[in-house]
């Protein structure tokens, strides 16, 4: 078991096509995951330089519990985001976390720029940066297939990351596809990979770790495993999955429809979790190390000829993608949603940003702010064909309009007009029109992600307005999540992994010192991330909530702008204090 005080990090110099294994930092100080990624950026990052500077690092970090306990199955990707040119994180699972663990590293850091499109192949006993120029331009699904053919060894114990055309063409919300169904989705990690000329990364988890006489550990593992599989608590994640939220949020008038012109619509029946579950769900799958299996695969069945001739594919779905490629675009047929999701998957875009950007573009076209010559295809709510074409134009950055839209919805709105209906909260909004606390949380959150804090849950559980209590909740909840993402746990397990349980888990694998200081660690990581965010140029006063979102009505009634602004002011003060140097 690992008791040494430093992290083992593989630094890959893409320019030289060589790597170096270093002992880095301090486990007690940074923990791992979020904390380790921040510490690595602190040492190797160039806060003053642009996100596409070749020497900017792209960091993948796991944590001390990765692989040791169920649902410790995520990886934190730390990088300077091309979207806002500041430090950020994105999280993904698949097989990557266990592959990095069994390759023997705490983190992998890529820097430099490969001379030609390349694939970094990483394992416990190997490192190559191979030229794969022939894969450039190929969509991410096909790229995955070809890579499995090019590197046939270690099937089953490796993870394959790749980008699609969006990442190659500098779209600032291009994603990294992880093992087909998972993504480092938000804030443009795929764009950073593209700027480095890295088409793909294959991580072979071909080593293993000895656990001499770990009876107490095996006992605790069993208890946690039972909690995570026997209880009803996780049922929502494997049954209908997060898609069950569509009906719930629609009933609460909190589901964004047609670029947030509405917050509820009877059309939800066509795209509800029940509809997907009953008619399209083929099977579930899981991240390695997770017995819950929340990844829902739907069947996309398309007729390709007049005769009864069909092609079928499996497409993963979840609440947020259905909001983005469904309700936000006025799509009310589940099969149409899958078809758009597959297109987004192929080109390698972040699905939430894409849906929201195209919703804005639809309204901008309706209002005559842009022309069909610019959009190159008719865009109208509910019309799937136009959106399918637009997704491809966007990923290829085909003209000035799509190039700008690919730098963010607000970038395009600033040029063409329509800022008031650009549904952007730091980045394109996630699917929660729940009210003031959520809008505060996403617009100022560390990652501008709905997963930074439980702001949307707070909105749904609290009727009364209490600025201090709400802000205390956001700050404390973020700190708790920093601990989870330093281990690195899936956030779906947050109801099971209390800080006491995390502490016992750490102790059971010989990390007693860290176990004794989990609260201290959470606070250090929270501060370290905010410090980096501010150091790379964050100014909370430049992040607003657009007029469209300020005018919504939810089940609680009309949004209270005065309350929203008080929350935002108070939260901005708190995070500024957290981000103070030293």
């Amino acid at each position, binding site marked *: 078991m690992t008791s040494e005080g430093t992290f083992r990090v593989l630094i890959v110099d893409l320019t030289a096509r060589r790597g170096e294994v270093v002992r880095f930092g301090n486990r007690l100080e940074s923990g791992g995951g979020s904390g380790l990624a921040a510490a690595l950026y602190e040492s190797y990052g160039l806060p003053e330089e642009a996100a596409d500077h070749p020497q900017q690092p792209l960091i993948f970090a796991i944590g001390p519990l990765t692989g040791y306990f169920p649902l410790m199955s995520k990886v934190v990707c730390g990088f300077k985001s091309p979207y806002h040119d500041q430090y950020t994180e994105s999280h993904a699972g698949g097989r990557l976390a266990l592959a990095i663990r069994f390759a023997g590293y705490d983190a992998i850091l890529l820097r430099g720029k490969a001379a030609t499109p390349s694939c970094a192949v990483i394992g416990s006993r190997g490192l190559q940066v191979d030229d794969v120029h022939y894969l450039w331009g190929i969509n991410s699904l096909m790229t995955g297939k070809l890579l499995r053919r090019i590197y046939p060894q270690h099937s089953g114990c490796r993870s394959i990351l790749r980008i699609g055309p969006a990442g190659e063409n500098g779209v600032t919300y291009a994603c990294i596809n992880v093992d087909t169904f998972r993504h480092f989705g938000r804030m443009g990690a795929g764009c950073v990979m593209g700027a480095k000329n890295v088409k793909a990364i294959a991580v072979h988890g071909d080593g*293993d*770790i000895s656990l001499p006489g*770990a009876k107490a550990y095996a006992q605790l593992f069993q208890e946690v495993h039972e909690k995570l*599989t026997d209880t009803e608590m996780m049922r929502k994640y494997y049954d209908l999955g997060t898609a069950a939220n569509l009906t719930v949020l629609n009933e609460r008038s909190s589901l964004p429809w047609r670029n947030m012109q509405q917050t509820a619509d009877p059309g939800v029946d066509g795209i509800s979790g029940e509809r997907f579950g009953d008619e399209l769900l083929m099977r579930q799958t899981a991240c390695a190390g997770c017995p819950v299996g929340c*990844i829902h695969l739907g069947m996309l069945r398309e007729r390709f000829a007049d005769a009864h001739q069909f092609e079928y594919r499996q497409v993963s779905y979840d609440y947020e993608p259905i909001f983005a490629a469904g309700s936000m675009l006025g799509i009310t047929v589940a099969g149409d949603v899958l078809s758009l999701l597959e297109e987004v998957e192929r080109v390698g875009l972040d699905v939430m940003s894409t849906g929201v950007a195209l919703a804005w573009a639809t309204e901008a076209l309706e209002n005559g702010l842009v022309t069909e010559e610019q959009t190159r295809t008719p865009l109208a709510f509910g019309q799937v064909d136009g959106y399918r074409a637009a997704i491809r134009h966007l990923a290829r950055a085909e003209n000035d309009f799509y190039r700008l839209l690919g730098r963010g919805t607000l970038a395009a709105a600033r040029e063409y007009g329509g800022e008031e209906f650009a549904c952007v909260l730091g980045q394109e909004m996630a699917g929660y029109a729940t009210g003031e606390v959520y809008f505060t949380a996403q617009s100022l959150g560390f990652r501008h992600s709905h997963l930074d804090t439980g702001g949307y849950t707070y909105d749904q559980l609290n009727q009364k307005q209490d600025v201090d209590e709400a802000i205390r909740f956001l700050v404390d909840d973020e700190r708790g999540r920093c601990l989870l993402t330093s281990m690195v746990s899936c956030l779906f397990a947050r109801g099971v992994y209390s800080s006491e349980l995390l502490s016992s888990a750490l102790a059971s694998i010989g990390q007693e010192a860290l176990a004794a200081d989990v609260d201290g660690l959470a606070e250090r990581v929270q501060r370290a991330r905010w410090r980096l965010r501010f150091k790379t140029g964050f100014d909370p006063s430049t992040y607003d909530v657009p007029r469209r979102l300020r005018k919504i009505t939810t089940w609680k009634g009309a949004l209270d702008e005065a309350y929203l602004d008080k929350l935002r002011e108070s939260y901005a003060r708190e995070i500024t204090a957290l981000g103070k140097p030293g």
Partner: protein
Amino acid sequence: MKILRAARMERCIGCYSCSLACARLLHDRLSWNTAGIRIRSAGGLTAGFEARLCLACDPAPCAEACPTGAMVQRKAGGVLFRRARCIRCGLCAEACPVDAIYLDVERNPYVCIHCGRCVPFCPHDCLEMRPAEEKAAGVAFPSEDAGGGHDV
């Protein structure tokens, strides 16, 4: 005596709980490879998963190939492994027709001994312990009778 069957792999979600349990509980290792059962994607993740594990042969080709008696025939089918006798020649892994024996970096073999400890960790009930007599009677894949598919 019973033998382990991966009877319902169509349900497998690829969580690796089974492999991790075997490695943890039998071999004192954290690993998804050094285990009696290993999960592989059946040609990309879209195609689902398959399990690599011992079919409980009798006579077992691996036991016949082993020059030192480290792999010995188990009565109910399959083998018992005596680590102290193993000289890490790898002949057992070569002899296995279904690639059920894993060799680690030092060429230590890992093979299923049909103890059943992985079974309760599978969240989708893909694995089960079946009476060894069924195999002898030719009912190798019980789930076929129940209308399900099968895998080994």
